[in-house]
């Protein structure tokens, strides 16, 4: 157990180092979400607080969804195939997928909080229950990264990864997105928290299913 935790730590460190050495990719993602928010702001040409809460909320999650798909799509194409083969001789596939999911979760957390900050700054912040909304962001980061990491692994093996990534991940992510939208809307309206707990439970359950399936299926994926 201790050994595998140490190996996971090493793999995570490798991910961070890789990201840090290719800073343009990380900066690209950060700029992507900021400009997406800004494009939406200018397109609606809205002054602060003019969007209805539903539009405000949905727009933000759509931006986050596209950012997540773009950010996570590169998690397997960043490194050359020969180097990936080398990792596979060092660590078990389960450790590799878990470290990728963990790393993507952290990346998504950074992107989500940055995006939310910019979004609230330019379009106003009507959120009633701030802690719950932030919790939704955390849940979203975990959910997006756990369901999209395996899909990006699948897509990276195919001929045109970019299209396939979008086509395969939209339907897979939708149940999660709908639940997140609902919790986020509850938080936005400042409803009593007891209303949202069952949805939070569902999101966690979907996350658990997706994580388990990724854990089980990834060994078959990398062998090819």
């Amino acid at each position: 157990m201790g050994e595998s935790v140490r190996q996971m730590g090493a793999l995570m460190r490798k991910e961070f180092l890789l990201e840090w050495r290719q800073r343009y990719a990380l900066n690209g993602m950060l700029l992507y979400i900021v400009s997406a928010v800004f494009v939406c702001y200018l397109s609606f040409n809205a002054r602060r607080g003019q969007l209805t809460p539903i539009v405000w909320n949905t727009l933000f999650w759509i931006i986050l969804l596209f950012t997540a798909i773009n950010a996570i799509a590169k998690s397997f194409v960043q490194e050359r195939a020969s180097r990936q083969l080398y990792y596979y001789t060092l660590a078990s596939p389960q450790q590799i997928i878990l470290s990728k999911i963990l790393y993507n979760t952290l990346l998504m957390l950074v992107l989500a909080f940055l995006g939310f900050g910019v979004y609230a700054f330019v379009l106003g912040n009507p959120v009633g229950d701030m802690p719950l909304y932030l919790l939704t962001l955390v849940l979203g980061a975990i959910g997006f990264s756990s369901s999209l990491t395996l899909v990006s692994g699948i897509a990276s093996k195919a001929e045109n990864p970019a299209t396939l990534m979008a086509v395969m991940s939209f339907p897979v992510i939708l149940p999660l997105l709908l639940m997140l939208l609902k919790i986020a809307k509850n938080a936005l309206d400042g409803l009593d928290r007891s209303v949202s707990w069952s949805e939070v439970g569902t999101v966690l359950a979907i996350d658990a299913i997706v994580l388990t399936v990724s854990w089980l299926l990834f060994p078959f994926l990398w062998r090819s």
Partner: protein
Amino acid sequence: MNKNWWKALAVLILTYVILQGMLGVVPRQPILNESIRNVYFHVPLWFGMITLLLTSAVYSIRYLRNGRFDDDVVAVEFANTGILFGILGCATGSIWANFTWGEPWPNDPKLNSVAIAMLMYLAYMILRGSFDDEQRRARISAVYNIFAFAVFIPLIFIVPRLTDSLHPGNGGNPAFGKYDMDNKLRMVFYPAIIGFTLLGVWITQLRVRYRRIKAALDE
């Protein structure tokens, strides 16, 4: 009779279901009126689709376990028939919704979930199309098929039940409660499920044989 008895059974059951559906006596319900006959066709198609997609996922798991190429062919054909049943289920549901709910595609969580599920399986077909190497295609699409089924289950069974829906069995209503179904309906409804599922298996079997022959001829 030998091993083809189930095909005869499928024909018999479906003839019975169609005759009952067109001519049989059905209870009169407010709003539903005669359209309740659709319960013999619309609902069994969904049951059939879920069974077919489950079988497809099972064959994908089998493929990953033993790597027999034939299992992948069976998995993809079950998924194909599942998509066909899904489209037919949507069509019959649309007709029904048009008469009872007033529009062919009301904004209902169950309808949307099914549309998403169809997108997921169409993506599976596109994924298959994007590989040249057969081994790779079989393995990677099997992985996606299992993953898609794992997401399909919460999508169909959990999400619609958490939100309000026009369908019975959602938003806290009991599914197929005592109020909706009487024994006469059940006498046709349960065989209809078996009949449509058998029909799906039959279609799949023909398609699989066609593929096998084609593969043999290509060699």
